[in-house]
């Protein structure tokens, strides 16, 4: 059987409602479980910890007292940046062009991949990433005892000295596609999926879907007034100014949209001085 229209139409994106997020950490646990995160001898050494999803606690002012203190939780994973090539076939995230060994690439579904067995561990991509989304295996990943039995067979276990990163759980999509193929559905665009963090969220704060589909919930949320992209300062400018700035310099232009009505949080996500 030949599929006539097999071109990729999907562009995966995410919307995270920070006003709904309770900071329970279920997304982080689900991510660790799904992607075979190792447990190191000293996991209290946070800057060296390997985790794709970091649940960040954001406070307006560390020294503020009640009722002036405001807090929010912000789940942060790879933002799957597009660079200035927004909507183009080949996106240009900050981390991909820098890799000296082509260990990382952007798929036509817009997901930034990482081939752990190709990575030489130079950490240049980590340096280039403004979201601290890429993590390095400083120690040998070990899975002790019965922990080994719970490993996911869809995600390869990385070796020491390589970079690993969130891929929007792309392997789940592949698993779903394989299922569909077994049922005779060969169209690559026929299948949707949900990453581990989105399906684990108890309040439904994480919405995942296709940004190219104008009817999808995620693309509606991305266009809402509450949407704000992390540190992507060019979003605040007028369309003319945006065009002018983007002709001079690339911007990250991530595909993860955060939703919040809290002004202080929106300002902080833009490096603006606190109001």
């Amino acid at each position: 059987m030949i599929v006539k229209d097999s071109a990729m139409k999907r562009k995966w994106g995410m919307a995270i409602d920070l006003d709904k997020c309770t900071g329970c950490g279920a997304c982080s646990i689900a991510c660790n479980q799904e992607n075979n995160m190792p447990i190191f001898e000293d996991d209290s050494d946070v800057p060296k910890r390997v985790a794709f999803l970091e649940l960040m606690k954001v406070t307006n002012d560390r020294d503020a007292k009640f009722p002036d203190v405001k807090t929010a939780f912000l789940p942060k994973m790879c933002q799957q940046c597009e660079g200035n090539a927004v909507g183009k076939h080949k996106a240009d995230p900050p981390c991909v062009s820098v890799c000296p060994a082509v260990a990382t690439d952007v798929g036509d579904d817009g997901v930034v991949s990482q081939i752990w067995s190709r990575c030489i561990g130079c950490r240049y991509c980590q340096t280039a990433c403004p979201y601290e989304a890429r993590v390095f295996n400083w120690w040998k990943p070990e899975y002790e005892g019965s922990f080994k039995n719970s490993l996911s067979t869809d995600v390869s276990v990385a070796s020491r000295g390589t970079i690993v990163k969130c891929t929007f759980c792309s392997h789940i999509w592949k698993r779903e596609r394989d299922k569909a193929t077994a049922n005779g559905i060969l169209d690559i665009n026929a299948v949707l999926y949900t990453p581990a963090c989105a399906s684990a969220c108890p309040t439904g704060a994480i919405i995942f879907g296709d940004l190219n589909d104008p009817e999808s919930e995620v693309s509606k949320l991305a266009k809402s007034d509450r949407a704000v992209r992390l540190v992507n300062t060019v979003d605040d400018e007028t369309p003319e100014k945006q065009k002018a700035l983007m002709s001079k310099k690339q911007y990250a232009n991530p595909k993860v949209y955060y939703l919040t009505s809290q002004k202080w949080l929106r300002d902080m996500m833009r490096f603006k001085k606190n109001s």
Partner: protein
Amino acid sequence: MIQFIKNIFQESSKNMRITLYVLIGLVVLFGIFAIQILFWGLGYTDMNNNFTWGAWIIGDLGLVALGGGAFTTGYFLYIFRVDKLRPLISSTVLIGFMCYLFTFVFLLFDLGQPLRCWFGFAYPNWGKGVYPASMLTEVFFCLSIYFCILVVELIPVVLEHKVLIKNKVVAAIAHYMHLLMWTMAAGGTFLSFFHQGSLGGGMWGVLYARPVWFAPHFFFMAIVAAMAGGTSFMTMMPYIAGKIMKKEVVPMESYQLLTKISGMIFIGYFVFRVYDVYTGIAKFAPMAQRNYFDMWGGYYGVWMLVLEFALIISALFFLNQKKYREQEKFMVIGACSGIFAIVTSKLSVLLHGFSVPNFPWKSFTAYMPTIQEWLITLGCFACMILIYMVFAKWFPLFPHLEHHEAHDESHH
């Protein structure tokens, strides 16, 4: 052999013996910790997911920039035929060779998977055009080719050893290699422009999402920095060697000519650096809605910028005025200021660059190298000094000195 080594120690003065013990001790410790890092990984360093690079990349940046004096000096000697620089060239080529050799060593330690280092050549990220997509791909290729050129440039120094040169074939090879050396100097200069730019600056300047580094002109500024600081470095090393050996290894006028060249290039570097800071304040930081001086904080604050400019101005002041440059004391102060200005700029690129928080709710970070990082870095430097000492003792590193000694002997 043991007797030979014993003799070396017995012949040396007390201070020299202590120095040798310290240097050899550092090299031994280097070996021990190298095994630890290569077999058990980078967990033993103070680098982390936020501070991704550390002491060894500072070492790389510093060594390559200061080793850049080799191509500048070679270019002036072989292409512009400034013959007064000839007494310096062998020492310069040797220092360049070692700087690049240990750049490779540092880079290898910095890789999480050192056994995969050849992937950089086997799977280069070249993109579609002539120019590679990744700055590190360019570093891989350019650095390797230029290292080969430095090896070729170093061969005559080895061949001219007083035992080897007696062989007629060796003498002929050494002679013709000298005659053809300008091709190597030209090729080396061409290549140096690329990797000096990419490793020193372009590598950081292209990181468009990191406002602390992003600057399209960074590539070109690093080339000027390497030419300015490198020439000062190439003056100071034989000068220090001469002071220790208590001999005039290089005539004073050669030193003064090279420091004059260095001073002139420092004018260009100063202008470029002022432009760099200005565009940082007025253009690139606002483009990312950041305040330039807000990014200078924490331990690696604005004092680094002030120190760097003070050192550049000191180098400018002492190296560009004839009355100061011709006094040995001021020439040394000027050249040292120049070297430290470049070292400070590399330190601030890395330490300040990584310490800046990516999110406003995070604070400035700091980096304190572990014992492994210190000893691998210092061990490499000790190794370089030992190699230089070996060459100074047994090889014709300073033709001026040999010439004078032969002259003296014929007089007696």
